[in-house]
Structures are given as C-alpha cells and as structure tokens.
C-alpha cells in the first residue's frame, strides 16, 4: 500500500504540471495569435445596451 500511494503522489505532481503547462502554452499561443485590441474588447453592459436600443424601437 505504501508503494501505491507513492505512485499516486508522483501522478499528482505530474498531472499538476500537465494542467499548468496546458494553460501556459495556450495562453502564450492565444496572446501571440490575436491582437490585444480583440482580446480586451469586452465591454460591460452589452446586453443592457441592446435591450435599451430595442426599447427605443
């Protein structure tokens, strides 16, 4: 049982590194593929703004 848990510990280290790596690689890829204008174009209240325009008819 000692050994099994030692392997589980190694697996946890490995998976942690894998998830971290997946995020960082995708982050770098995304930042280099798209312009900063597109990435930070989100504006608050878009839904509300549209509802308001609809009301104005």
């Amino acid at each position, binding site marked *: 049982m000692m050994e099994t*848990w030692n392997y589980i510990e190694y697996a946890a280290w490995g998976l942690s590194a894998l998830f971290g790596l997946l995020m960082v690689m995708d982050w770098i890829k995304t930042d280099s593929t798209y312009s900063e204008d597109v990435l930070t174009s989100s504006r608050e209240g878009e839904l509300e703004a549209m509802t308001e325009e609809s009301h104005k008819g």
Partner: protein
Amino acid sequence: MAQTDITSSERDGMGPHGTKVGLLRVLGPAHVWALGVGIVLVGEYMGWNFAVGKGGAYAALMACWFAGILYSCVAMIDSEVTSTVAAAGGQYTQAKHIVGPLMAFNVGLYLVFAYTMLEAANAITAGYLVSVVATMTGYGGALDQRPFIILVIMFLAWLNYRGVLATLTFNLVITSIAFIAIIVLFLSTSGIIGDGIMQHAALFEGHEKPYGWIGIVAAMHFGLWFYLGIEGTTQAAEEVRSPARALPFGTLAGIMTLLIAATLTWYICSGVLPWEFLGDGVNGSVAPLFDTARLSGSNALIWFLGIGTLFATLASANGCINDASRAWFALGRDKYLPAWFGAVHPQYRTPYRSIVFLVPIALIFALGAPLDQVITFSILSGLLGYTFMPLNILMFRKKWPMGTIKRGYEHPFHPIPAIVLLCLCAFTFFAVFLGYGTQLVAMIGFYIVVSLWFHFWRYRFVNRGAQFTMPWPKPLGY
C-alpha cells in the same frame, strides 16, 4: 432597431458597442444554484462546528438561524440589484454604479480576497482528506499533501480556463451529490429509515450554555460558515442566458437549499457527537458529517459522506476560482487594475489571464499559510462585503425608486432586510473582534492603505465616463 435576440447563436452574447470577444451567455438557473450552493456547502461538511466549541450546541443552532436571516437578506438584496446590474464583477459592478469608484475598488478587492483565500482553504482541506483516505487504506507514513493541494488548484483552474459551461455543469453534479449525501444521512440516522441513533436529550443535558450568553455571541462568527459565499451567484451575471430570471431564481433557490442543509447538519451532528468533540474542529471532529457517518456503523454511509466531503470541497474551490477571476477581470476591464486583465479568450470565452494570474496567489496561501488564518481573512473580507450591501440597496432604492428602471426582481419589506442585515453585520463584527481582533484591525488597515493608493494614483488611469454602462435615467436628486 428591431427586436434583437442577443442570446441567438448568431449574436452569442455580443453586442453592438465594440465587443469583439465577450463572455459567453450559456448558463441557466441551475448553474447559478450550483455556483452559489457549491461554494458554500463545504461549510456544512466542516468549519461550522467551531460554533459549538464557542458556546455549545444550542449556541450553534442560534448562530445557524441568525446567520440564516442575515444571508436571506443578502440573497434578496443581491437578487434585486444584480438582476438589474447584470454584469461580471457582481457586487463590484453594483458598487460602481450605485455608490462610486472608491467603494467599488474596495468591494472588488473584498471579493477577490474572500474567494481566493477560500479557494486556498479548500485546497488545503482536499489535501488533508486525501491523507485521511491514505491512512484509512493502510498507508503507514505521513503522506505528502502538497501534490494533492496543487493538483486541486491546477485542475480546477484548467477547467475554468476551458469554459464556464463545463465548469459549472461539473459543479452542478458534484454539489447535488454532496447535498443528497446530507439528506441520506439524515434519513438513515434520524429513525425515518431504520433505527435512529439520535441522542439529543442525553447529549445536551447539563451542557445547554457551557460559556453562558457570551459564548452564544462568540458562536455567531462561525454561524456564517453555513452560508458564506451564496452571494457569489452574482458573478455569473454576464454569463447567464436570462439574468433577470436566472439570477434571482438560482440565488433564492440556493439560500433555501442551504437553510435546509444547515439545519439538518446541525440536527444530525449534535444528536450523535458530544459537544466537546464536535466543537473542536482541530483535534476533535474535523469533518462532523463524516464522523457521524462513521458512528452510524454503515460502510455505505461512510463512503457516501466521504465522497460528499471531497465533492463539497472541490465544488467550493471551483466556484471560488470562477468568482475571483470574474471580479479581477471586471476590475481590469474598467482599468481599476491594468487593462491587460480584462482580456477574454477568443475560443473558450473566459477571462483567461485573470484565471491564470490568480493561480500562483492561491498556491502561495494554500502552501504557505495556516488554515485558520486563511479562513479568517476570507470571512473578514466577506463580512466587509456584507456591510456594504445594505448601504448599497438603500442608496439604490433612493436614487432609482421603484418604477424608474426595470428590475428583474423586487425584494419585499424594504428597508427591513437592509436594516436587519446592517444590525447583524455590526453584531458579527463584535463577535469576530472577540476572537480575531488583531486580524480585523490589520485587514481594515490594509484596505485603508490600498484605498489611498487607488485615490491618489490609480484612479487617473480609469476611463471615468466609459465605466458607467447602464442605460439608466439620472439618479434622483442629481
């Protein structure tokens, strides 16, 4: 302009005002419920029992229901304001529109700290639970908990990074299982199914108020633990398909679920575990529901409640990552923090930079700080947020009285819930001061310093006009 369905696949949540990539509107009321209850339910599995240690079992029940009133007020107030101010950032965005930028900056930080610290506390707990499982399965040495703590944070951050629908559907499943586990434990131990093992009268005799009334006051602090985090539902505001319907529905269903779960938890645990053991969350009962299952003698219950404890912990950490990152993202989008944090992933449509940025911060707290300190700072930040809420709703109703703007939900008996909430917050501050005075003063000192920084330096970078996005009429009196 013709009626436009912003939730259609063509529009996909994006509007005509320059948003090329925005958060995705895909969530329903069940996801809102899962976000709110998911963050909180771990408090039923562990933590609340410190209230028993402060003032006995009756004190814990009083704390449970007092805090229940406090949080019902929170849920009603939040439902009204957030169904009207439906944007990521939740209470931060509410504060910005209703009170002003300095309040908003502080509220944004309360949210990020409360959730990130809670995430760290959950990861520490998950690591501990894995070590308990290792011991139960015959592992002789001391298991290194660090890889499991890190794995919880990394896996859940990755899930959050990949998309909100999968993240909160995952929360819906594991939160439901954890809630059902409490119901099953109640049915199996109370005598409704099979023989009951409850011994309330015998266990309470002679221990009604072990520390008198001051013990009951002190227990209030940990009563919050039953519900702490239900206000997190508001962070989903920009990602639900129908904010005006889903947010009040999910939030109010959430507080009802928690009132049931909290009362059942108190009833089950106080009827089986002696108060001295139940009230010592460090050397006594770390996970009281699980300990009760162990005393039931049923292996199936032990496994079910063990899984429930782990799932509740994971659901809480998952919801915290979701909420902390939305609050940080909203601060970045308004340039209260560097605009760089206001980025949305073009494919997954999540605030990916905020999610990744908060990972090392959660890791530092999870690996480097003691659990009780992490929890205390989380509670204190939450409590500061609750104190803001009654002031917020009073100003909201005064500046925009009923009928001037369309509200998704209108809470009843105004201003009674706001006044009750304010009084209960004052009472809880006193209770916290009894146990954690130094931390309270240090925390308030910290927020004063960052407020000065924001006022004298950071605010010059904020887009002052563009930050107010709600198409509301001018407030009354302006």
